């Protein structure tokens, strides 16, 4: 028996707990007394906490939620358990667009990155549709992977021919929250505050689409219209996340599946649940990335891949 409300409450508490841990632990552990004091600008920990740790934690929360939501929306429309922004190549295309723009115009403001990444995501999706049409799940996933390989190879090429700082390069190769300050939070916040609630309005069409296209039409929604709207929203969410943190993999695949097992397939539970799980996953990955071997830092994308790749493998074996 599934009790979605209870599950969501537990998830919310877990997120709060991990948030608290993320604030405390890092290359330096702060006690609660330290934390309280560090909020004063005069304190020696002020910079580390307020300028460094807080923005990236907030960003992890937002980006994790956005990526998970994007996965839910894509899976809702395509009806393919393997579909998710990273498998379809959207993430890497958005990343490629961002890194390309940054290399061509080094002085570019981060404000523009989400828009450029969105264009990249749209192009990638159009290309995938052009190449795949309505293919079977495995074939669509394979084409997505092939396109991803293309975008990744171009990114690699750009990166190798214009050497960057190593953390910077890693960010664009695997996704990371390294060095993300308040400026990035301010860029993400308005978009995500607009888009995340908007998706809750789409619960009904999503539920109906899950019944199949014919059923959905009979029940009175314009299927094509709804699908296009939902996909646009999904691409926008993925693109914003990637523009800020690089192509973080497997959260958009993993979170929807996990949530579906916990709260079932109704979207008014699934959407908030997936956002919480996505946020939880990315917060945990970032926390681990910062604390495994301080002061060195792993990119969070490496950790999400270590969890996500085996899951993808397992999913693959079950998909027919």
């Amino acid at each position: 028996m599934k009790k979605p409300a209870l599950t969501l409450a537990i998830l919310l508490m877990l997120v709060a707990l991990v948030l608290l841990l993320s604030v405390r632990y890092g290359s330096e552990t702060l006690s609660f007394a330290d934390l309280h004091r560090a909020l004063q600008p005069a304190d020696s920990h002020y910079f580390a906490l307020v300028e460094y740790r807080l923005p990236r934690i907030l960003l992890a929360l937002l980006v994790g939620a956005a990526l998970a939501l994007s996965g839910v929306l894509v899976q809702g429309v395509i009806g393919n358990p393997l579909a998710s922004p990273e498998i379809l190549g959207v993430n890497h295309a958005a990343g490629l667009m961002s890194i390309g723009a940054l290399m061509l115009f080094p002085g570019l403001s981060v404000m523009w990155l989400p828009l450029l990444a969105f264009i990249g995501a749209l192009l990638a999706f159009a290309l995938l549709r052009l190449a795949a049409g309505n293919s079977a799940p495995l074939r669509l996933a394979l084409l997505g992977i092939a396109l991803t390989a293309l975008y990744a190879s171009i990114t690699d090429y750009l990166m190798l021919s214009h050497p960057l700082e190593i953390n910077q390069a890693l960010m664009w190769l695997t996704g990371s929250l390294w060095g993300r300050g308040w400026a990035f939070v301010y860029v993400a916040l308005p978009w995500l505050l607009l888009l995340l609630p908007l998706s809750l309005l789409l619960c009904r069409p999503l539920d109906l689409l899950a019944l199949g296209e014919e059923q959905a039409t009979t029940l009175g929604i314009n299927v094509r219209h709804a699908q296009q709207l939902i996909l646009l929203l999904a691409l926008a969410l993925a693109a914003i996340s990637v523009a800020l943190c690089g192509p973080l993999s497997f959260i958009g695949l993993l979170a929807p599946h996990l949530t579906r097992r916990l709260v079932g397939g109704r979207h008014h539970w699934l959407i908030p649940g997936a956002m919480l799980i996505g946020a939880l996953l990315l917060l945990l990955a970032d926390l681990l990335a910062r604390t495994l071997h301080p002061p060195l830092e792993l990119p969070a994308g490496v950790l999400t891949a270590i969890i996500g790749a085996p899951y993808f493998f397992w999913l693959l074996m079950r998909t027919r």
Partner: protein
Amino acid sequence: MMSGRPLIAWGGPLALLAGIFWLSLFSWSPVPIGSWQAISALLPGKVSVLSQALVLNLRLPRSLVAILLGASLAVAGCLLQTLTRNPLASPSLLGINAGASLAMVVTSAFDPSWVAGYSIALLAAMGGGLSWGVVMLLGRGWDTAGDRSRLILGGVAVSALCAALTRATLLLAEDHAWGIFHWLAGGIAHVRWREFWQLLPFSILLLPLAWLFASRLNLLQLSDDSARTLGIRLGQLRLLVNLVVVLLVGSCVSVAGPVAFLGLLVPHMARAWIGNDLRLMLPIGMLFGAVLMLLADLLARAVAFPAELPAGAMLALIGAPCFIWLVRRRT
């Protein structure tokens, strides 16, 4: 298909290989080398000029390693595609490259003294074999009724995991992570005679061995059942061929890093050129592989001259669109 005209079928690629080999000895050198000096350096006699020494000590081993690498990876790709009857099978897509690199990186993080000579090639082969075993066993790779895409996606998933672990190990254990990124892209900019001698025994032993399996593998192209009725012991053959593949890939990765897409593309080129008979396909594949690797290395030098890019990055740029095309063409 050129199998009807043997002179063109064999002479063409051979001439191409010779031409590109010659080109690779002198072109795009920071210190100008004359095209004639490149040849005169190869003739016996005393080396007097700097450019001749450059050819002998830098260019020649590099080009020879490129030839061996290309031939080995091409053969590995041909064998894999025959064995799995999957046109997308290749060392990079099935996770062998990624497993081999992971094994190397982990070993060097624990004990750098191991990273030399033949032991590292064997280690890389073991890592590659392990990751491939995971793909094949868990992915039900021998199940011919299953969807062909599944095996490849499984390989990609295992590769992603190995790549993530490799990056994590590198970042935690190494000081100069940037150089390692060049290595992970796959390239031969650093090779000298030592790497050539490290690679040579594997190639000399394994490439003819692979050819000896060719006639039996030809029967495997039909179906498992018909191969069995014709008296092939499937399990034994698979094990041996797998061993050859894994050792070939391991030796290549240990010298040049994970070079992607060569093993995927060359078998298709060879098949289109000479037909499905593996006894002909394997040697032609070796020629094509060598040409492609030399070409990629030349390109890698040319596009960023006087700096250099890893040849693997160039191959990925060429190979990824072909990969998309191959996925679309099948099924």
